[in-house]
């Protein structure tokens, strides 16, 4: 809504002005209605008092049938001003005896004739005379008061005083005029005050806003926000924000440190692992060499077998080192020939023996017949790794399935086994180097596989659960560029 989008600099003065106008209007209405009510009463009292003052003389005149004296009393002092009151004396036959306005109420006119003269005044007088006692009647901006004229204890007639009441509406009109100007002046004074006040309230909010906007755009450590000392809501908000900013900064620092340490840890782990892997055969190798030196120190070297064994050990150790190192330095030979159906069949043969030792039901489906421009060696390596893992994971007489096919120009490899599933904790670190859930193996197999797949710009996924583990590899055949 438009109103909600207005700035506080506008809202605040608007609120203040609205409040003051409402207050002023309520005050005016209250005062005016009070005045109106009390004025009504005072008018009634006034009329009755006037009647009381004139009562004796009028009663006497009525008694003596002295029309002139009654008239002169009603007329009062002769002045140039038109009378505010209309006064009519009636006898008890409801006939006009005298009036200060004889042209309207001539002597001798009966109220039954009042209808023909059709002014509301006549109707009002007829009505009030109908009530045969002291009575007051408001009619058409006029107050009619009847005062019975008594001689001793009998009523000989009535004095009806009619007072114009329009003065009140005039007064109310004047009050509202004055009120209108007073309100205008109030608005004129309040608006600049409220404007300044609004600005003052808004300023800390604007500062806060600009501070908040800087988060994300600037490094946190550069952001400094001035915090006001106030204890009001906005002040507290600013303080909380300031504290939050400090916390953010601390967290950011911590994160950096964690990342750094994580990285270092990872590198460290890798390095340690590598070192360990190198170290392992190295110890054996050193011992072997030592042995070799020992065994072949004699001239005929009768312990040749032992020497050969020692050298073999060294050889094997070196081979392992080479394997480890070469695994770390994963490289794709671009001159490698493209993979073929035969190459993949070779892999089958390779692993078949291993599976047979465990009497595993080895399901093999090689639908690959194309010649796709994917280097053969890494594909074979991937397959071998995955199959060996699968075989290793499967129990005796278990099942391993392998499906190789192409789809949309991509090479799809799928290796399944129904061995013990990989639990979730291991899944996280599955492709990490030197991670193994078996005592056998370097723990680098999957890591190497992962690197090989990534180098071929492919993707490897694993699903494991309910005694079923599936490794899916997708290798695209599109141009991979040179490495």
């Amino acid at each position, binding site marked *: 809504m438009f109103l909600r989008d207005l700035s506080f600099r506008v809202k605040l003065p608007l609120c203040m002005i609205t409040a003051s106008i409402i207050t002023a209007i309520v005050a005016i209405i209250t005062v005016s209605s009070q005045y109106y009510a009390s004025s009504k009463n005072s008018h009634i009292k006034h009329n009755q008092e006037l009647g009381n003052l004139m009562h004796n003389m009028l009663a006497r005149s009525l008694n003596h049938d002295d029309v*002139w004296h009654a008239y002169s009393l009603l007329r009062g002092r002769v002045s140039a001003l038109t009378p505010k009151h209309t006064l009519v004396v009636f006898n008890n036959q409801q006939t006009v005896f005298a009036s200060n306005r004889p042209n309207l109420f001539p002597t001798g006119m009966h109220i039954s004739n009042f209808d023909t003269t059709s002014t509301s005044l006549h109707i009002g007088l007829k009505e009030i005379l109908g009530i045969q006692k002291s009575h007051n009647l408001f009619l058409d901006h006029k107050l009619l008061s009847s005062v019975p004229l008594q001689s001793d204890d009998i009523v000989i007639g009535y004095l009806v005083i009619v007072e114009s009441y329009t003065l009140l509406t005039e007064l109310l009109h004047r009050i509202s005029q004055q009120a209108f100007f007073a309100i205008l002046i109030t608005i004129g004074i309040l608006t600049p005050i409220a404007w300044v006040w609004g600005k003052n309230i808004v300023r800390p909010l604007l500062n806060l806003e600009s501070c908040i906007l800087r988060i994300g755009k600037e490094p946190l450590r550069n952001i400094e926000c001035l915090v006001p000392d106030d204890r009001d809501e906005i002040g507290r908000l600013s303080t909380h924000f300031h504290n939050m900013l400090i916390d953010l900064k601390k967290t950011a620092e911590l994160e950096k440190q964690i990342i750094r340490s994580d990285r270092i840890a990872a590198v460290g782990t890798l390095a340690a692992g590598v070192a360990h892997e190198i170290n392992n055969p190295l110890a054996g190798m050193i011992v072997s060499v030592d042995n070799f030196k020992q065994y072949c120190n004699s001239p005929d070297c009768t312990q040749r077998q032992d020497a050969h064994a020692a050298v073999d050990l060294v050889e094997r150790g070196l081979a392992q080192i080479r394997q480890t190192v070469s695994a770390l330095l994963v490289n794709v030979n671009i001159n490698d020939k493209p993979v073929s159906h035969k190459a993949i069949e070779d892999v089958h043969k390779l692993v078949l023996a291993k599976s047979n030792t465990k009497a595993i039901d080895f399901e093999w489906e090689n639908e690959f017949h194309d010649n796709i421009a994917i280097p053969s060696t890494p594909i074979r390596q991937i397959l071998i790794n995955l199959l060996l893992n699968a075989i290793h994971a499967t129990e005796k007489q278990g099942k391993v399935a392998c499906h190789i096919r192409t789809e949309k120009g991509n090479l799809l490899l799928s290796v399944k086994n129904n061995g013990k599933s990989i639990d979730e904790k291991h899944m996280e670190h599955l492709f990490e180097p030197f991670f193994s859930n078996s005592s056998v193996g370097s723990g680098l197999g999957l890591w190497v596989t992962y690197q090989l797949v990534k180098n071929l710009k492919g993707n490897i996924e694993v699903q494991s659960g309910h005694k079923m583990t599936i490794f899916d590899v997708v290798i695209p055949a599109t141009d991979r560029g040179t490495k």
Partner: protein
Amino acid sequence: MQGGLENFRHRWVGGLTDFNSIALLTWLLQRLLAKFTLAVVFVVLFLSFNPVKAELDSTNPVIRIGITPVILFQKSQFLQKWKLYLETQLKHSIEFVQQDSYGKITTLLLRGELDFAWICGYPYVQHQAQLELLAVPLYEGKPLYHSYLIVSSRDTKTGSFHELKDKVFAYSDPDSNSGYLYAQYRLKKAKLNPTLFFKKTFYTWQHKNTIEAVAVGLADAGIIDSYIWETMKRQKDPLIAKTRIAEKSKKFGFPPIVSTKYTPAHLKRKLQSILLAMSSNIQGKYLLHQLNIDGFTKGNHDLYDDILQMHLFIKANNHVSS
């Protein structure tokens, strides 16, 4: 002795600051030609500043003169001036007595509580035996006046008494010739009962009140003294414009100033001569001008024969019903 010292003070103070002199001056300047002004002013000032010794007659009581609404006596300033004038001339303190009605003055007069009174012709003829004519005012050169039947200026049709059936009628005073007697006479002459002929009648107690009653509509018609009506017209009273003369009566004798059998003879002579001489001095003329009369004359009881005749007619026909 009441007012003696006060009168004395009045005379001295009056000479210097009183409205008397200032008004006189103004009036004179208005009336006289330029070349006489200076001389006249001198004379007037001489007269005004002439301190008359207070020759208060401590043996006689104050001379009481009754005043009735035959004149427009609301102008009490006039009465003060006239009082001063008469006192100066008479060398006697005077008191003007006013009452609500002709009847009260007449009663006081007959009881000897007033030395003189300016009354209407009607009470004079009623009590002719006890009253003595002192002076009769001259109005428009003659000691005569009329009775006017007046209606509202909006009433353009009424021309006579008998057209006023079932109307509200205003009399001035039951002892007034022009304000009562004449109407009674006219109606009874026409064999109408004044009590039943009108819807309602009432007394206003002063001629000018009758004019007001008719002007504002309190009464449909009224009967008044022509002198009063004409004087108010001369003064441009706004009430006059709201009335219209429906009928003028024949001329009657002007309301006279009378004395009683109790009044001392020397006083009668003195006052009479003063009144008659008023038209021959400046101050007197000024006062007469204020009164709208030309002067006073001795007068004769014949002047009031018409009134007497009407009075007798009424008495004889009191039981006539319409």
